[in-house]
C-alpha cells in the first residue's frame, strides 16, 4: 500500500487525481500505475489501466514480452482508492486474484461503493427485498462464488489515501466541465478523517 500511495503522490505532483496502484506477482511489483486522465485527455486512463499497460509492455533484455496473458490471474492489486466500476470490470475480465484498496469510492466504486462487480459481475439479486434496490453493498453473508469473482479488502491506509484526494480537490481542475464546478474557491483541506463505520468495511 505504501508503494501505491507513492504513485498517488506522484499523480498529485503532476496535477492528476491522486490515485495510485501496484500489481504484485509472487512478491514482486510487476506494474505501477497512476491516474493519467488529464495528461491523456482520456477519462479512462485510470491507474489500473496504466499499470496493466506497464505489465504487458515490459520486455526482457531480448525484447520478448516478460509476462504472459494470464499473469493477472496470479496477481494481487494494491490501489489507494476502490476501483471504479470500469476498472472493477477490467480486473474481473483479466481474472485478477485479489484487490486491496484504501479509501472507498461511493461515487463510482465497483467493489462495493456502487456496484459489486467483483461478485457475480454485480448482478442484482432480483429475488428477495434486498434493501432499497439502490445499492446492495453491504449484505455481507455468504454467496455462491462465480467464475472470475475476486476477493476484495478495503480500508488499508485509508486516511492517507483520503488526505491525498482532499489535497487534490482543493486545487482547481481547469478541465472539468462547467456544470460540475462549483464553490471550489473557498475549499480548504480538512485534516480529520471520520473513522470507518463498522459494517461499512468491505469484507473479502
Amino acid at each position: 500500500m505504501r508503494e501505491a500511495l507513492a504513485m498517488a503522490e506522484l499523480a498529485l505532483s503532476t496535477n492528476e487525481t491522486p490515485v495510485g496502484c501496484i500489481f504484485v506477482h509472487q512478491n514482486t511489483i510487476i506494474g505501477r500505475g497512476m491516474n493519467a486522465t488529464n495528461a491523456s485527455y482520456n477519462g479512462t486512463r485510470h491507474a489500473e489501466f496504466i499499470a496493466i499497460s506497464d505489465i504487458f509492455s515490459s520486455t526482457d533484455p531480448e525484447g520478448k514480452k516478460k509476462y504472459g496473458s494470464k499473469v493477472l490471474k496470479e496477481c494481487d492489486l494494491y490501489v489507494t482508492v476502490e476501483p471504479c466500476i470500469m476498472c472493477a470490470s477490467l480486473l474481473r475480465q483479466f481474472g485478477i486474484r485479489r484487490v486491496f484498496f484504501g479509501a472507498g469510492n461511493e461515487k463510482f466504486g465497483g467493489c462495493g461503493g456502487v456496484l459489486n462487480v467483483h461478485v457475480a459481475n454485480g448482478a442484482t439479486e432480483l429475488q428477495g427485498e434486498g434493501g432499497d434496490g439502490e445499492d446492495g453493498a453491504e449484505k455481507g453473508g455468504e454467496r455462491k462464488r462465480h467464475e472470475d469473482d475476486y476477493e476484495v479488502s478495503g480500508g488499508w491506509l485509508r486516511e492517507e489515501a483520503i488526505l491525498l484526494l482532499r489535497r487534490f480537490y482543493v486545487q482547481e481542475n481547469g478541465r472539468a466541465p462547467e456544470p460540475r464546478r462549483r464553490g471550489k474557491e473557498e475549499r480548504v483541506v480538512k485534516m480529520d478523517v471520520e473513522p470507518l463505520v463498522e459494517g461499512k468495511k468491505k469484507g473479502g
Partner: protein
Amino acid sequence: MTRETKGKETCTNAKAVPDATPKGILVPLKTTLETRARGSLLDVYVTSVPVKQASGALEVIRRLLPGDGGVDLQHLRRFAKARDVPDAVREAFERARVEVLGATELLLIVGSTNAISSAVVAEELSVIVNDAVIFSIQVPRLAPTSQEQATLWSSQYWPTVYKKSNPFGPHPSIVSRTEQEIHGEVGKWMDLASEVARQADGTGSGETVGVVIVERKNGIGHPVAVAGDARWVGWPSKGAGNVTAHAALRAIAMVADGVKATSESAQTFNAVSASVTQPEFKADPADQDHFDLSGTVAGYLCHDLEIYCTHEPCVMCSMAILHSRFGKVIFQYRMPKTGGMCADGDLGHGLFWRKELNWTLLAWQWIRSSNGQSFELADFHA
C-alpha cells in the same frame, strides 16, 4: 429480453433498396428505476394529530428523522384528512385506537418503519400530542409516473401526487426530440460500425464488434473515430484476450489522441484499417501535441459526443463511456449476460442513467427493420 437476431441471416436484396441508408427504430432503454421496484411498497408509521398541533408535530418528526431517514416521501401528501384516505387506512387507525378519527384531526406520515421505532416516536411526540396513536400502513415507495397511477394509488394506499416529470429517467420530451435529431443517420453509422466489426473479425484482430463516435454540429453528424475490437492482437486467441482493446475503449482513445477521421468515407476507412492493426499498448500515452482541444464540443474528453456500437458495451466499456461524458449511446445488439447499459438484462446495471453516478446519458437500442446481415451472438464481453 433478447430480440431478433438469433443465428445468421444473409444479405439478400441490398440492391433492391433504393435508399442506401438502412431503416430501423430506436428503442429507448429503460432505467434501473423504471424497471425495478415500480410497484414496491414501503411500510410507514402514521399518527393522528389535532389540526392545531400539525406543524408542531411535523417539526418534532423532522428533528427526529432528518431527511426522513433517507427515504424520499415527496410524492406523498404528508398530512391527510380522514375522508381523503382509503378505507384501509381508516380501519387501521380505528384498530389502533378503537375510536373514529375526529374531524379536527389529521393523519400524518411519520416515516419509514425501518428508520425508527414507534415507541421513540410516541415519546418524542408526547410534548405535542398526549398518547399519540401510531400505526403502520403501506405506501408506494416511488413516485408515480402518470396522473392515472397517482389517482389509483391515492385510492389504494395514501394521497399521492404526480409531478409531471419522469423522476426515474430522462424526460420523455428530451428523448423524443433527440430521436428526431439522430434517427435519419443511425443506420449509416451502424453500417459503418458493422463494417469495421466485420474487418476486426476478418483480420482476426478481435470479436465482431465495431464502434463509431460521432460529433454533431448544427444537427449534422461527423464521425470522429471508428474502431473495431482488437482483443486478439498480440494475444492468444482464447479466453478474454486483451480486455483493454475492446472497440469502445479504442475509439475513446482515438478521440483522445486526436485521431480524427473526416466525414469522407474514403478517409474514414483508411483510418479504420490503420487503427485495426495498430498495436494497443503504447509505452507512453504522450504525443498529444497535435490534439485540437477546440475540436470537440466542450473540449473535455468526449463531452456530449454520440457513440454507435454494434453490441451493447460490457460493464467496463459502459462505465468508460460515462467517464468520457458521452451524450448518447446507441447499440444494435443487446448482450444480456455481459452488457452494462440495459437495466433489464441479466446484470441489471442500467449504467446510462443512475442517480448515484455523476453522469447520465441517453441510450437506445436500434432495431434494424430491413433484412440486413446480423452477427451471431455469443456471450462475450463487447
